[in-house]
């Protein structure tokens, strides 16, 4: 049956791995980045740990270069900037905006843990009972939406 296939592969290890890869997975070229992140989260991979490890290794590379009298290339500096602490923004406004956008997007990426509503009140005087009730209703609605989205994700996976 399988002998009728147009392209027969031999049994070498590498061909087997490649053939298995093709049988198990679709092409990831067109995969949206959100799906990539969802897949990593589903496999138990902590993206922040990945980022931190790359940052540490890149930092070590930059230090080794400095020890030889070489300054970090612009690309390495950019990588360090992107992978550094998400709350530290670069001086360049465009790059700062890009980093802030990524930070906010990460907060809403699925699979990063249970959602929690955190609110703040800004106004004059104490909160009235009516204000508190309104805020509680908004919190409950946001929490319900977040839980529904999370449940939907779990069902998909």
């Amino acid at each position, binding site marked *: *049956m399988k002998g009728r296939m*147009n392209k027969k592969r031999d049994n070498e290890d*590498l061909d087997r*791995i*490649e053939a298995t890869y093709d049988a*198990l997975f679709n092409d990831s070229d067109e995969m949206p980045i959100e799906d990539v992140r969802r*897949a990593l989260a589903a496999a*138990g991979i902590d993206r922040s740990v990945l980022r931190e*490890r790359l940052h540490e290794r*890149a930092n070590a590379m930059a230090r080794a270069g400095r020890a030889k009298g070489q300054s970090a290339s612009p690309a390495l500096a950019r990588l360090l900037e992107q992978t550094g602490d998400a709350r530290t923004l670069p001086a360049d406004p465009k790059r700062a905006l890009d980093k802030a956008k990524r930070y906010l997007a990460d907060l809403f990426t699925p699979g990063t843990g249970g959602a929690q509503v955190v609110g703040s009140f800004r106004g004059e005087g104490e909160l009235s009972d009516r204000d508190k009730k309104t805020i509680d209703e908004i919190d409950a609605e946001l929490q319900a939406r977040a839980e529904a989205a999370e449940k939907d994700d779990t069902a998909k996976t």
Partner: protein
Amino acid sequence: MEQFKDVDWIEVLERLTLESLRLFNASHFATEERVLASFGDGFEDLPQEVILGLLDEDNPKVTWSSARGPATTAGVVAYLRKVLRNDFYDRVRRKRLKKQRSIVTSTADDEEVSYLVESPDPTPAVDDLLIRHEHVAPLRKRLDEDFKARPDEDLQLYLMLQFDGHEYVPYTPRDAAKELGVDVKQIYLLKEKLERCMNRLFKEELEAARAEAHERPHEQEAR
């Protein structure tokens, strides 16, 4: 002018990590348990190595040629994915070479040295075939166990078609669709479902391994 100014390195890292995880799972499925373990590298190390390899100006092996055009995130991912695959295969090859039998068959010092002579194209021994299947079994076995808890007839049929033959020759999506009598689109959806299932199993395995390491920290320290 900065060559990689438009590249989102975090996206590159995440896409390559998924690629590495897939390769790891495919090799786990196709050949041996934990192929990477013996390299001393995990699937998370390879993507970082290739990214830093590209940024290392002293590394002539991984470079962005101007012929490829301006470096974009997608372009860098496509290029580094090839580099990553080659690195991965190099490690598999090196490991396979290490496992080759010595051609010297005598062991005792006083024994006359004799050499193993193999035919140029040996037929795989039964033992060899059985060992191969034994290596395939664990991940496949876990999938089968998972199907008992969460039956999925279509996915099971797809796996049987692809991996239960005497010869190890997976079908292309078009051929698989033909054999199963379904639309080719259905095969792509099945593969998506299969990847989600494998990722879930991988997570369970990872959590179990972490829990074990947590319970026995003294052994980790001793290494």
